[in-house]
């Protein structure tokens, strides 16, 4: 029982971390109807910036304080993400208004390649460290209740908390505000949105910027967990079933989806995996999402797919 | 005129359809006779399109019955309807945007093409022959609707009016017994409406196709149709010959307005 709870909690925590990446996808999709393949690359890029600047800043400024270095690095990295968002709008999106989903998806892929290359060129391709002082040692709780106690990971716990806060804030921002409405309008029909005076350019910069900040937060959390290096981009893959399960257009969906996938993944691997040789969690997560989709093709909280003639 | 209006071919009985709180159709009954041109009119949102959707199975009514050539159906499904010879056009044009006009119309022949996928892959005898046969048929329709010059154009590039015409052509390619037309003349000027009316009359006349027509242009409806049914917010408020309907005060107040 104690162990089952541990698996469950482990799943929930991992799920929250997935949500954080999933959120980036949802934001951009919701606001422009673009499935942003570059989200993984953005996470890596942001994390690299954060890691390298926090490493360089003490040298540049002569401050030794880790906290100061981290804060400065965060600000610089956030600014960098803003520049990236602005450039993406200027150089890419602006020229692809009103194009089909596949085209836009492909364009974000081109962006992903570019950012990957750029990040590694500027920041290097070694493993780097982000140290924001997250506690790494596990804590045991409820030792009286279960044999061996319940092992909880503080780092995961803090990360999950941050993810939850971020999601709540964004959900609030998008709900019912005029901007939120405008974003949904843009996602439905670029041209019509333009025709009534919604400034696509500005909207896109804003959204990509927010997605960039989300990527930065995800990058910091994942980076401090795993170390900052190229494999961070693959975290995006683990977040995909979360996105479709929760619904591509739903901010809260990203959370719920994350929790379901996280738990499903861990429970299946731990309890079913050994029966078939292990390593099933990835495809299990996707299968799980697929099963949900068979009942709700738009994901749990996604906007209904409209088909009407 | 060889046309002779026959027996009731399609009969809707007490059909009700609602979406959530919206009652699109409430207890509607009406019939269509063979070879006639039956018009449906009514204000926006009255449930006209929904009615067509019920007939060919896109919507499933909550209550009522559809009787097609004596056969009773609780509800239709689109494929069954197509097999039973019901074709239609759409209000918000539903052409296959990525295909040329010719290919769009050829899809209408789909039900009549029998070659299997292997024959098609190898372009073998049967498939090849079939393709040519049906192409000839489709060309007749193209000639009939006078769209020869745009056969190879992708439909996405066509102006609205021509798209409507292609939509009609695709439906005609099915050689339907019953043709459902949802505002075929919306967005056309008089001249084009005249053309369209002529096509509809000719189809009805020469091929004996039964036609159910939704249209907001009263001129067209009055001139072309044999019988008219009037819907208002899901309810039937009138049914009869154009002249009867035109004189019906309820219809005037709900739909036509004073000037017509």
């Amino acid at each position, binding site marked *: 029982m104690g162990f089952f709870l541990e698996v469950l909690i482990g799943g929930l925590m991992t799920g929250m971390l997935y949500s954080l990446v999933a959120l980036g996808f949802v934001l951009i999709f919701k606001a422009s109807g673009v499935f942003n393949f570059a989200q993984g690359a953005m996470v890596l890029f942001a994390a690299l910036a954060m890691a390298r600047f926090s490493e360089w800043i003490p040298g540049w400024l002569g401050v030794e304080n880790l906290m100061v270095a981290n804060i400065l690095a965060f600000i610089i990295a956030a600014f960098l993400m803003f520049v990236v968002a602005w450039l993406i709008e200027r150089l890419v999106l602006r020229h692809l208004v009103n194009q089909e989903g596949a085209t836009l998806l492909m364009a974000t892929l081109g962006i992903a390649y570019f950012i990957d290359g750029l990040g590694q060129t500027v920041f290097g391709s070694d493993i780097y460290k982000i140290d924001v002082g997250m506690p790494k040692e596990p804590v045991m709780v409820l030792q009286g209740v279960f044999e061996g106690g319940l092992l909880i990971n503080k780092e995961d716990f803090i990360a999950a908390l941050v993810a939850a806060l971020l999601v709540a804030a964004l959900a609030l921002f998008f709900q019912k505000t005029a901007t939120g409405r405008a974003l949904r309008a843009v996602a439905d029909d670029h041209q019509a949105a333009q025709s009534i005076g919604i400034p696509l350019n500005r909207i896109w910069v804003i959204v990509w910027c927010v997605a960039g900040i989300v990527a930065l937060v995800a990058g910091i959390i994942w980076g401090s967990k795993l170390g900052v290096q190229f494999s961070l981009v693959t975290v995006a893959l683990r977040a995909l079933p979360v996105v479709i399960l929760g619904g591509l257009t739903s901010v809260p969906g990203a959370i719920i989806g994350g929790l379901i996938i996280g738990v499903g993944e861990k429970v299946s691997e731990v309890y079913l995996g050994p029966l078939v040789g292990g390593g099933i969690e990835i495809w299990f997560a996707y299968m799980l999402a697929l099963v949900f989709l068979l009942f709700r093709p738009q994901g749990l909280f996604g906007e209904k797919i409209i088909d009407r003639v | 005129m060889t046309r002779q209006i026959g027996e009731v071919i399609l009969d809707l009985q007490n059909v009700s359809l609602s979406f959530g709180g919206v009652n699109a159709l409430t207890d509607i009954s009406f019939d269509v006779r063979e070879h006639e041109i039956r018009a449906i009119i009514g204000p*926006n949102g009255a449930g006209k399109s929904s009615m067509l959707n019920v007939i060919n199975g896109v919507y499933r009514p909550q209550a009522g019955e559809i009787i097609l050539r004596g056969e009773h159906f609780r509800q239709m499904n689109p494929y069954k309807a197509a097999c039973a010879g019901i074709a239609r056009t759409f209000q918000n044009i539903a052409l296959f945007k990525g295909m040329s006009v010719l290919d769009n119309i050829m899809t209408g022949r789909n039900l009549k093409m029998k070659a299997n996928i292997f024959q098609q892959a190898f372009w073998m005898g049967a498939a090849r022959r079939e393709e040519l046969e049906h192409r000839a048929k489709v060309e007749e329709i193209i000639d009939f609707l006078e769209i020869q010059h745009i056969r190879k154009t992708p439909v996405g590039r066509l102006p609205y009016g021509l798209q409507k015409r292609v939509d009609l052509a695709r439906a005609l390619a099915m050689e339907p017994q019953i043709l459902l037309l949802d505002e075929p003349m919306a967005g056309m000027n008089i001249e084009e409406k005249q053309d369209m009316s002529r096509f509809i009359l000719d189809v009805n006349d020469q091929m004996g196709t039964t036609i159910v027509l939704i249209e907001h242009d009263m001129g067209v409806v009055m001139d072309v149709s044999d019988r008219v049914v009037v819907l208002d917010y899901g309810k039937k408020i009138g049914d009869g010959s154009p002249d009867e309907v035109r004189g019906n005060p309820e219809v005037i107040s709900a*739909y036509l307005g004073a000037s017509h």
Partner: protein
Amino acid sequence: MTTANLLLNVNSIEVIYNHVILVLKGVSFSVPERGIVALLGGNGAGKTTTLRAVSNLLAGERGAVTKGSIELRGERIEALTPADLVKRGVIQVMEGRHCFGHLTIEENLLTGSYTRTDGKAAVAATLEKVYNYFPRLKTRRTSQSAYTSGGEQQMTAIGRALMANPSMVLLDEPSMGLAPQIVDEVFSIVKDLNQKEGVTFLLAEQNTNMALRYADFGYILENGRVVMEGQAEDLRNNEDVKEFYLGLSSAGRKSFREVKHYRRRKRWLA
């Protein structure tokens, strides 16, 4: 028309789609302040394209104005974004409705007020006005617009544009798919706004009869060229216009049943 109060001036523009398809071949026209100008013409004449050129929505269709100039109150506007134009009070109601399918009718209308800065109360007032114009929308206000009927969508599209409090509206086929009563309604709204609030209209219409009844001035477009222009009154009395655009012959209105298969071709197409 005097040039003094010209609002919009389009000067022999040429439009090409996809770098190869030449659609407008030198179209010129002008719209006076507080005027109602109608663009008429058959299918594919280029009306929609003209409106898109004015409102700068061509880019999304991979089209471009390659020659000529477009001036709004004397200012060249080809390089502006559609949003800039809306800020200058010019808004387009697009052909084919283009409602935001996932948004409810009310949300659709509210998006129209995105550029307004005059406060919530003013927006609410306009919303009320639109609902007054189209009571049907009010009853369906909470439905997702993708599921509303064609006519309801058309009303939504028009209403949405009005929500911006525009000074000029480009209306592309406003009457399409509307019941006769509503068509009357739409045109009287046009007249109403024009007279009471001084809104200028440029409308592309197939319903020539209606358009010429309400417009001051008309242009007839065929094949990407202006083939005829004149006061609405004069056009209405022109024999060709009568025959080809109004469906009237010397013997009065022809029945749709009696249309002959082969008719006289339009002179200007020769």
